[in-house]
């Protein structure tokens, strides 16, 4: 009986060796199939990305034509004295954006990212922008500060940057609004 079982075990081992060889060739086939599908997926990804670019540009031109477009950006430099929670933006007394930041977004700002927080269509002429920044200031105290800018909207797109910087001497954050043409 023992002989029978040993031979059966031997058979099993043999069958595994055969299976292993078969598996190797199956793996090679499966890898080739994966690569073929992967190449198709890569091509498709590129085409969808290009299509998204065209759609993105169309959307911007359609919703915010260049002659009336004003884009508002938020940026942070260093950010040691201020932990940003929210930004509230009013244009000509009317609230247009109230943005709450996730930790990931705030971190992206600290690392040098610039967020386009609002896009608007404004008539040529003078306008007033009021931005309120809320967050944690030095010593983790609640901090709320405002900044105002009177700006003139000419012909052509205009960019406005709400910049939070550190004033090292005073160990305080500083909120500056800058215009870009």
């Amino acid at each position, binding site marked *: 009986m023992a002989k029978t079982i040993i031979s059966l075990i031997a*058979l099993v081992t043999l069958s595994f060796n055969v299976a292993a060889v078969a598996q190797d060739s199956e793996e090679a086939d499966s890898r080739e199939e994966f690569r073929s599908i992967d*190449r198709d997926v890569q091509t498709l990804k590129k085409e*969808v990305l290009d*299509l998204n670019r065209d*759609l993105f540009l*169309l959307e911007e031109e359609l919703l915010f034509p260049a002659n009336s477009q004003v884009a508002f950006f938020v940026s942070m430099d260093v950010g040691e004295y201020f932990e940003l929670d929210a930004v509230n933006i009013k244009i000509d007394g009317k609230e247009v954006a109230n943005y709450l930041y996730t930790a990931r977004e705030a971190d*992206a700002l600290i690392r040098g990212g610039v967020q386009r927080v609002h896009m608007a269509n404004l008539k040529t002429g003078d306008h007033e922008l009021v931005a309120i920044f809320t967050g944690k200031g030095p010593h983790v105290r609640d901090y709320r500060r405002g900044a105002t800018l009177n700006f003139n909207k000419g*012909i052509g797109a205009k*960019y406005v940057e709400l910049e939070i910087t550190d004033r090292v001497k005073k160990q305080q954050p500083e909120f500056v609004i800058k215009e870009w043409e």
Partner: protein
Amino acid sequence: MPRGRSIVSHLRSLLVLLALVVPSAYAATTEKEPIVVEDPHYGEVLFYFYQEDYFPAIVRLLAAQEQQKLDDHAEDAELLLGGMYLSYGHHLEAAAIFERMLAGNVSSDIRDRTWFFLAKIWYQRGYFEKSKEALNFIEGELPDNLRREALMMQAQILIESGEFDSAISLLQNWEGKTEWASYAKFNIGVALVQSGRIEEAQQVLAELGVLNPFNEELTSLRDKANLALGYALLQDDQPAAAKLPLQRVRLEGPFSNKALLGVGWADAEMDNFQRALVPWMELRSRDLLDSAVLESMLAIPYAMAKLDSISQAADHYLNAIEAFYEESNRLDRTISHIESGEMFDQFLTTDPMGSTGWYWQLAQLPEGPEARYLFHLLAKHEFQEGLKNYRDLDYLHRNLDTWQGSIDVYSNMLETRKEAYEERLPRVEDALGRADLDGMVNHKLDLDSTLNSIDKSHDWLALATPAEFDMWGEITGLEATQALRSDIPEAAEVRDKIQLLKGVLQWELEREFKGRLWSIRRDLGDAGEALVDTQRSRRQIDETMRNEPLKFADLSERVYGLGPRIEGMKMRVDDALADQRTFLQSIAIGELQAQKERLDVYTLQARFALAAIYDISSSTDGEAQ
């Protein structure tokens, strides 16, 4: 938007960006250096990039490049795009960018590191040939940690392609006592076993089997080496020697099942079936997915039969057959679940809005009876990469769906705008027709010329107010009165008074003359500026009226052209999703079928052995009778 930070050179930024996309590749050699943002559009791309939202980041970068808004960051943007393509799993496009940039004037240090980086990405995606090519492009000395990894990759590629001797000679001169040295040793051991040089392999693996590990990875490597050594010795008919390395494998670890099985076989080979039962019984309670556990279910009754516990052996064979049957049924259910396609939808709903691309990993398996099989499947490289693609394709599908909805809104918006424009146009044209701008300009020019002649002739009376002018007329009128010419004292007195009044008025007018002239000139100047503004506005209106229909035509063409493009792309994404699903299904089902076949073979073995036991029992009973 200068940020008051250090200046970043082009070459350094390549390292920074590469470090950002694959931190491990550069972490040891690149200090954290901020990127200076000179342009809000570039900063906006970084905002998404730092959040690992690669798709919107790439779209914004491509859009800004198209609009030529990244002039201050042209080269950095190209590098960043390459890096993001990689992170998004679009390695072919990324490689094309890097190769293009590497063809330029780049230092050999950066060139070599970038080739290394590309080789690593291709190796991970199974493009071994491309990976090998990239490694061959490395000309100089890489930093130590990268050099070791590159060498290991090269050896692994050689092993994958069956060139064991080349792999062995490549790794044999390995220097140092780092983790990499241990991996190199293991790979030499494997290559030696695969090329049939068992004795040499034993020596290499034995050294590795007693190493003192300082992390989980090395402990696992030690287990692997001990397992390989133990089985090599078992194959070489050295069961006593095989036991030692097999017993060094941890009891709770990925290799413990096979080690326990091997220890049992070593004892069995030495006819110590009682001892062999100890590790095999331990295996009985473990997961049937492992072939070592399946085999133990046959090995136990085999040992019992050897110990003359025939009835117990028969019971265990029956238990094994029953367990194999139930497991086989479970496998059938899982296979039909996979065939229905529901499983892949579950994968997507488990983590619906997470990140896409290269670094995505399934955080949690979908719940259900098939989860334990999936766990094993996920260890398969192609399955995992295929799942990433499947997920990315699903993201593309949803993205296109959203755009399809938007594009309908945009076409409506465009039509409404066109209608509003056409409705307003006649009113505007009428108003413009009534406004005589040229007449106003001529009038202003006449006024300029009159003022000039007043100034030249010092005509102070011309600038008198109407009241002053009337007064002046009244005075000069009185002056001409006949009665005042008579030679009487009263007339002389009135004449003197008139002369006085006239003199006072003239003196006043002359005194005011300069001020009035200046004030009128200023008002005329303002009017002139207003006229210029009006003319400019008029030109803009004319230009808008000329361009607006063209703009509408261009936007209409784009809106109506993009609709079918989205539709077509969606169909292709759907097809690719179906292909990817079929591929994943075939891997998963293939794997489960193989397991089922193993179960069938084992069931057959158990039945044969059981029949043999019944045969022996009946013949023994017959002899007894």
